[in-house]
């Protein structure tokens, strides 16, 4: 076996990835049992593992995967239906394979566990399912699946999508031959024995966008290699040094007029080095980045199992799985996020009967969203469950002696919620298998804070809970502003910078006036009050920048910084330059100060500290935006309230789209739009997107397309590649009273009241099947 060791290791790594994919595919298949492509992919994966286990002589693994393959074969041939029993058996197969692989990884052998009974169980499930099928005819008896997963974007349900092009047969299926998408022949044609089933490769038809992107994906997989992480790390470090040297070269040449005169080509060369370095830097950084999907991909299975255990129904929505972050961070956030997801299902989402009694849908909604914001990655875990019982938390905090009853009564809700991060804090009435032991939230926070991140929680009784995890960039090259303050220089991450405003004397009295509000300086900026923080005062350093007093006019530059919950102006002497900096770690004792996110080295070799806008906002006690900004930008708590995008339809009607369904707003020039039956199709990011006419959807009356360009509301990818054509985008509203569902009809979710006007809300989910249909009908195959 020694010669094989390397192959075995490779097999283990590959299989681990495949098993994760299997979990995902099986849960998705449960939702959509007719997804033949997915079934084919599952079949192939199991087949591959079986093939490899034969090659390495892992008999037990071979036996159980053989049983699984048989079951899948029956399923594929339409001899059995995917009911709960079959799905359960297939998922337990994944677990069994995983446990054997774990054993192999640890001991090099399959171990003594007896899987004979398991193989028999698989056979029994297969027999029973066959009998059910024969007795019940073709009636599908499945109940609504407990978990619905919407990861992929293309509509894969229609039989029209199944590939009809000629198939290329390959003679044997070896472990490594995972080429392009295999397509299992439709029932009736694929009579090959399942154990010797050759993998069939099919070239996807060029017109089918989803097939194409999948083929591209597997092509990418073939062109990738595994690289030692240490090597990548040193590569990134070296590039960092190169960036610094480049900056130094740049400033030296620019400041040396004589040098430029003597060597006229020098500037050109420097420019070239500049360009190449920038590209190299981007490429090197990309090597460390991985999509957060690596963490998210486990959740459909976890949520499904948990929902079954708890007797709940949960719809899991995943968004932004392609958000990339540093690989080292992916590992760190895996456990905390898993914990939060488990919490949401176990504690957050209510039992179906409770939900129905509360006027909610029986299935709870759990959504995971990842996105980049202000140079950070934010992961949002949001459920529409019962929310955190604030009073229970309050009482618990008192009974645990964390605060006195009087203090507790005084505390605002968001402060009370912070107690759940205390070690051993749990309000769960009973301890379940899943959670409720009170270990957890404190560990979540500790782990996230250890990497310099933060965890925020907002909850509304009866409406749900949002937990927001922010992960900073720890090691990266980021664009930054270099500012001066007295004799000091600091770097401010560009991501947090909204705008720069000069506080010149001439501006005094105009729109940029510095005022005092209860002793705290503020600035009036376009009708809003912006809190100001004078960096020199905060740091106790001598500087030029000053606020206005009776005798002085203000001086300096205001750097308007914005994080999700704070916005303020940081007043410095001047802004020197904007450039890419290498974020270098600083010792823990300095991070603990809260003011600094790291340090960098300038071109001249000097060390410059990187300011942490969040820490500065805290230290300067900048009030959160909702308080300082009267009108109230949404805080986390407000987001529990549904928000809607109000638009004018092509025919001039006012309609609203739930904001959570909106991915972005785009305008397309007329010549990019193909039209058919009042609807339109556009190419976006190499994919086809169907753009439905809102009037046609809701009122069956398409509006002629007469404008030079088309404004479209592109919906979240989880709904498919679809958008809505509108005439104008009006505003985002958060109505005070919830949506009135009494007035719902076909395609209409209900109505919301905005300024006394009733506006219909499009039921995007209900109208989408139609929209996806559009794409199929309109795009010639």
């Amino acid at each position: 076996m020694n010669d094989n060791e390397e192959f075995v290791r490779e097999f283990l790594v590959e299989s681990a990835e495949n098993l994760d994919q299997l979990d995902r595919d099986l849960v998705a298949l449960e939702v959509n049992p007719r997804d033949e492509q997915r079934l084919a992919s599952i079949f192939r994966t199991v087949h591959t593992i079986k093939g490899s286990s034969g090659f390495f002589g892992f008999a037990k693994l071979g036996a159980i995967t053989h049983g699984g393959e048989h079951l899948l074969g029956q399923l594929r041939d339409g001899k059995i239906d995917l009911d709960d029993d079959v799905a359960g058996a297939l998922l337990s197969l994944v677990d069994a394979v995983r446990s054997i692989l774990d054993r192999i990884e640890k001991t090099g052998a399959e171990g003594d566990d007896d899987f004979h009974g398991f193989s028999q169980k698989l056979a029994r499930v297969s027999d029973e399912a066959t009998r059910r099928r024969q007795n019940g005819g073709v009636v599908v008896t499945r109940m609504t699946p407990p978990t619905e997963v919407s990861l992929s974007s293309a509509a894969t349900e229609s039989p029209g999508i199944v590939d009809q092009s000629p198939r290329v047969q390959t003679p044997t299926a070896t472990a490594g031959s995972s080429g392009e998408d295999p397509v299992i022949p439709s029932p009736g044609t694929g009579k090959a024995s399942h154990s010797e089933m050759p993998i069939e490769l099919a070239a996807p038809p060029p017109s089918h966008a989803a097939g194409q992107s999948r083929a591209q994906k597997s092509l990418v997989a073939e062109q990738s290699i595994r690289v030692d992480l240490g090597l990548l790390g040193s590569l990134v470090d070296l590039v960092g040094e190169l960036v610094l040297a480049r900056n130094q070269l740049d400033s030296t040449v620019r400041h040396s007029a004589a040098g430029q005169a003597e060597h006229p080509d020098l500037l050109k060369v420097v420019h070239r080095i500049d360009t190449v370095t920038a590209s190299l830097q981007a490429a090197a950084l990309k090597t460390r980045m991985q999509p957060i999907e690596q963490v998210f991909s486990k959740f459909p299975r976890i949520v499904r199992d948990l929902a079954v255990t708890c007797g709940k129904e949960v719809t899991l929505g995943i968004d932004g799985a392609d958000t990339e972050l540093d690989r080292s961070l992916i590992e760190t956030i895996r456990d905390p996020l898993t914990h939060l997801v488990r919490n949401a299902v176990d504690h957050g989402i209510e039992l179906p009967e409770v939900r129905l009694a509360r006027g909610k849908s029986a299935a709870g909604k759990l959504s995971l969203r990842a996105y980049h914001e202000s140079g950070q990655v934010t992961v949002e875990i949001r459920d529409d469950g019962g929310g955190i019982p604030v009073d229970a938390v309050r009482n618990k905090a008192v009974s645990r002696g964390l605060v006195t009853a009087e203090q507790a009564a005084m505390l605002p809700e968001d402060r009370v919620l912070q107690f759940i991060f205390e070690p051993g804090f749990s309000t769960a009435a009973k301890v379940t298998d899943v959670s409720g032991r009170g270990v957890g939230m404190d560990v979540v926070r500790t782990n996230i804070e250890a990497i310099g991140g933060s965890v925020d929680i907002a909850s509304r009784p009866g409406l749900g809970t949002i937990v927001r995890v922010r992960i900073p960039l720890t090691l990266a090259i980021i664009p930054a502003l270099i500012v001066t303050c007295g004799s000091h220089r600091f770097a401010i991450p560009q991501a947090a910078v909204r705008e720069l405003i000069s506080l010149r004397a001439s501006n005094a009295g105009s729109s940029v006036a510095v005022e005092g509000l209860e002793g705290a300086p503020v600035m009036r900026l376009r009708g809003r009050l912006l809190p100001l923080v004078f960096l020199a005062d905060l740091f106790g350093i001598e500087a030029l920048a000053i606020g206005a007093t009776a005798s002085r006019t203000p001086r300096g530059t205001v750097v308007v910084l914005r994080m999700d919950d704070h916005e303020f102006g940081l007043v410095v002497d001047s802004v020197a330059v904007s450039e890419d900096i290498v974020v270098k770690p600083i010792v823990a004792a300095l991070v603990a100060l809260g003011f600094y996110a790291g340090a960098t080295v300038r071109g001249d070799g000097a060390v410059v500290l990187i300011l942490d806008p969040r820490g500065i906002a805290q230290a300067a006690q900048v009030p959160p935006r909702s308080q300082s900004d009267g009108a109230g930008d949404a805080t986390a708590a407000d987001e529990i309230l549904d928000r809607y995008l109000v638009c004018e339809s092509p025919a001039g009607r006012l309609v609203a789209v739930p904001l959570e369904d909106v991915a972005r707003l785009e305008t397309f020039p007329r010549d990019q739009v193909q039209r058919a039956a009042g609807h339109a199709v556009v190419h976006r990011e190499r994919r086809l997107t169907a753009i439905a006419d809102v009037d046609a959807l809701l009122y069956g009356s398409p509006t002629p397309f007469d404008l030079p360009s088309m404004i479209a509301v592109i919906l979240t990818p989880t709904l498919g590649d679809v958008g809505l054509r509108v005439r104008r985008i009006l505003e985002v509203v958060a109505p005070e009273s919830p949506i009135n569902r009494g007035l719902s009809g076909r395609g209409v979710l209900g109505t919301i009241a905005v300024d006394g006007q009733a506006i219909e809300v499009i039921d995007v989910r209900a109208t989408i099947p139609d929209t996806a249909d559009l794409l199929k009908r309109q795009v010639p195959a």
Partner: protein
Amino acid sequence: MTSLPPAVAPIRRVCTFVVAGRNFAVDAAAVQEVFRGTMTTPVPRGPAAIRGLLNLRGRIVPAIDMRRRLGFDPSAGEGIHVVLSAGGEAYSLIVDAMADVIDVPVTTIEKPSAGVEGGQRECIDGVYAAHGGLVHLLSIEAIFAGLGETATERKLR
């Protein structure tokens, strides 16, 4: 009852330096390099003992003013940097002058006298006689740890 002659007596190799006219020492193994004063970047609201940050070939290293750390009057001179590494973090100690690197038999190292106070008491974990006087052996961990406390205290303020 014959006792075996002792093999080589255990020794500690230490690097000695001068701060405010007194001799101090740290374990030589932790010393990475020594160089004459260089430019540092001050850290506003940082621990008082940190004079600033220095760029050590791309690595950011805080420089600890040992006069302040040990409770002496600060000096205007640039001093000499002794870069130490412990617990995965590197610091530079700014001292007045370097003395030498010597091997000290462990048996000659004694407990520090009770007389010392403040920063010195935290940091000193042994005393031995050399250079015609006493040399105080410093605990590197204690030097660094004290800084952390200062930082946290400041944060809480």
